[in-house]
């Protein structure tokens, strides 16, 4: 397994399958009364969060604790600059304290890559700027796999602010690596002009895409993008790209609706759509724990759910 997880592009289809298969067995652990295995006993995992993200941090924390690792949360609200200590000094401090893995969330794209050059610990990217969020993509793949027999030929639309979305990048790479057909949907201002080179299709017409989909993946749209002139109004955005009751009916019966959270109900997704059975948004959250357990386990080594050593 890889030493650091910085980008989905590091993972081969075989790597991804291995993570998902391992997550399958860890998912069962979460259903036990005692939700804990001794796989990473004595290992130290640091959650280094430069951005508030309660959901991702808690998911990693639970994952590490269920593996019996010691977990340290190192959070800072603002940027590292505001905090005073440089990322490098923080990295050296964590290194000196004997961290085995550092899970980093940071507003600057590429900071996990930079961090990995300074530490001996494994670095896991938990979201960096507008670059990537690889564990989100892996948990999304896991969730999709629960409903479809294979990724090959699966038609997935990623809808919304692709330009600023690390989730979109990681999912576009991960899904196309696994053989799915990905279409990025949104206004031209929110799709990078060169996105086609990722091996995906681009569309500016959601209604045209919906009837052919197996998965409709919606991205959070930040209201400040309107101020920056990426689109004229939230109202127009919701009208053209929001998944409302009417649009959801254009989807094939088995199609899933997904969202990485947190949702803007009424903007990219109508409240009633978010609560439909086909909207597997809470499953994504649940699966996040198993997938992160699998990653920590595979990257740090240790004993598996049934006591076997990592191959």
């Amino acid at each position: 397994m890889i030493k650091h997880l910085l980008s989905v592009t590091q993972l081969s289809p075989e790597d991804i399958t291995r993570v998902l298969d391992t997550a399958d067995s860890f998912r069962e652990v979460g259903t036990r009364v005692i939700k804990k295995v001794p796989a990473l006993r004595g290992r130290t995992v640091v959650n280094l969060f430069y951005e508030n993200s309660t959901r991702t941090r808690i998911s990693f924390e639970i994952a590490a604790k269920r593996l019996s690792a010691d977990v340290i949360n190192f959070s800072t609200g603002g940027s590292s600059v505001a905090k005073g200590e440089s990322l490098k000094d923080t990295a050296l401090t964590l290194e000196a304290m004997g961290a085995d893995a550092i899970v980093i969330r940071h507003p600057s794209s590429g900071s996990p890559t930079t961090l990995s050059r300074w530490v001996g610990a494994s670095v896991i990217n938990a979201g960096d700027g507008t670059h990537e969020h690889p564990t989100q993509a892996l948990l999304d793949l896991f969730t999709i796999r629960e409903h479809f027999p294979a990724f090959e030929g699966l038609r997935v639309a990623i809808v919304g602010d692709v330009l600023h979305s690390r989730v979109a990048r990681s999912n576009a790479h991960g899904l196309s690596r696994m053989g799915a057909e990905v279409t990025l949907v949104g206004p031209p201002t929110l799709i990078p002009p060169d996105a086609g080179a990722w091996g995906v299709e681009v569309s500016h017409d959601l209604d045209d895409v919906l009837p052919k989909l197996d998965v409709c993946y919606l991205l959070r749209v930040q209201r400040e993008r309107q101020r920056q002139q990426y689109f004229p109004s939230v109202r127009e955005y919701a009208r053209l790209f929001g998944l409302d009751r009417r649009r959801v009916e254009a989807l094939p019966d088995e199609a899933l609706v997904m969202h990485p959270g947190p949702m803007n109900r009424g903007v990219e997704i109508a409240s009633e759509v978010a609560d439909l059975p086909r909207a597997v948004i809470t499953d994504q959250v649940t699966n996040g724990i198993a997938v992160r357990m699998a990653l920590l386990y595979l990257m740090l080594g240790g004993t598996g759910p049934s006591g076997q050593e990592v191959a």
Partner: protein
Amino acid sequence: MARFLFRGARLVDPASGHDAVTDVLVEDETVEAIGHDLDRRGTELIDAEGLVLAPGFVDLHTHLREPGREDAETVETGSRAAALGGYTALCAMPNTDPVADTAAVILEVQNLADKTGLVDVHPAAAITRGLEGERMTEIGELAELGVRLFTDDHECVQSAQVMRMALEYARAYDVVIAQHAQEATLSEGWQMHEGYWSATLGLRGVPAEAEAVVVARDILLAGRTRGRLHVTHTSAGLSVLLIRQARGRGLRVTADVTPHHLTFIDQDLQGYDTNLRVNPPFRSAEDRESLREGVRDGTLDAVATDHAPHGVEDKEVEFDQARPGTTGLETALGAALGALDGDVGLAVARMSAEPARILGLDEHGGPVAPGRPANLTVFDPTASWAVGERPFASKGRNSAFLGRTLRGRILHTMLRGRFTVRDGEATG
């Protein structure tokens, strides 16, 4: 009386068109004779077989950081780096603290440079007070002091009216208005060139057009005012096209490009190496090819370093928080030769004769001829060296070329007949 005889050198002197093996005799401050069988009596022989002897290089774009950021560079350390790079003259950028927008700051930098005495420093002055883009500096008085080039680098003069006035006013003194072309609204919050790699790396892009729209505007204004416009550190192929067209129309427009923009492209940022964060950013492979073509056909008159030393703490940070810039004085020759297929004549023209012409420096850039000041450099055009293998003379460690192997090594630099670098070592 000091007499040095450089024996068996390939004299490459674009100003006279000379490119042949010969001996060069230097006596005191001047070149005494060129040719074979020169009078060797009382001379110190310097074997230059297999080496190139050229007029000392002239850098149009150096950040010496003094006054204000003496932790990053000083006039002294920057001068030493320049000499080691083969330079005998340079133009120091005015974005110091305080800004070089008054005679006092210009004189201070000149005094510091004279004290060091390793390179002739020609301070550039700001176009606008405090680099704020609003009110012109006293261009007339500064020109009388000897300032040849005015620029608001690393700010771009956004107001068309201010730029028009500067070009028009400066015409009376025959000085150059140099622009760091970057339209503010298109470049807000930029981190790299906009394209496939900015999309993939999640770094905010600035399109090549942010540069080209200002180049186009300034060319139109230069046409209107008949002023002298210089486009510095050109990065976009579109800009090269515009400059080429302006020259075809006979406008007084000149331009330079850095050795690093001739070398790197946006794709090289994949590892988020902050030493490759520069302003303007590295652009596409097609842009780089246009820049190289511009150097070959003379659209880009000069290769200038944009030597921008920074403290380690300003580079060992997250990519978007790193200060843009790379050092360049000590790597310029090797980098330029690498980008220009080892064309020594072309590199010397773009690094010496042409920038000297733009600055109007009569003493520099050749011709290397009897009676002329002995401002020379001697280099081995094929010697390879690994960047970083020996410490830089610059205080800046932030070289984009760290770890790369360059071909082309400076052995001697001579300023008015006195060695500033001898056998690869600075003399002062």
